[in-house]
């Protein structure tokens, strides 16, 4: 079984990957595995993994968060507001 996840990326990570895309992941995949799948498609993002944060359905979430079919995830580089 697999599930489809919508992914967004921002700023530098967007430039190195895509604004939006869809990933097909195994059931029970985590946010970390969503990153790995995106990085497999866009290897240029991988060096930024230590600094990136993940969001799950619009909220910051730990990498070990389990995803479900239809979820929205986002990958965010270090923020620079203010």
């Amino acid at each position, binding site marked *: 079984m697999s599930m489809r996840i919508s992914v967004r990326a921002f*700023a530098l990570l967007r430039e190195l990957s895509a604004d939006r895309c869809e990933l097909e992941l195994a059931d029970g995949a985590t946010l970390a595995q969503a990153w790995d799948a995106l990085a497999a498609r866009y290897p240029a993002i991988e060096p930024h993994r230590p600094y990136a944060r993940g969001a799950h359905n619009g909220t910051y979430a730990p990498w070990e968060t389990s995803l479900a079919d239809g979820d929205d995830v986002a990958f965010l580089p270090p923020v620079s507001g*203010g």
Partner: protein
Amino acid sequence: MTSGLSIDPIDVRALEEGLAHRGHGAVVTFVGRARDRSDDARQVVELEYEVFLEMAESVLAEIAAEAEHRFGVAVAVIHRHGLVRIGEAAVAIVTSAPHREEAYAANRHVIEAIKERLPIWKRERFADGSEWKRPGA
């Protein structure tokens, strides 16, 4: 409480006037303006902020509510996105309280929380190109 992201210039005076609590004797306003110099002293022509809008709106509301609850103040905060010209306010934070201690502390808390977790990214535009702002500044 007022919080939001705006593509248009911020009316700081209106934000202050929105916090008209008769029992609040202290009003602190912090304005972060677009500077014409980067941290490595290059000439900056303008700034552009990219934002994860849906998430930023909820994070900013959460930051403002947290400050109101923790310090017993009223908070109004607006952050710009899109193009911001040099000298314009990129962020404005107004806190009001019965006394200055809480108003200052809450105001500081809001800007530090923005720097830590508002999903927004600053791009500095130079005469000869542009770059994402590196974290830590």
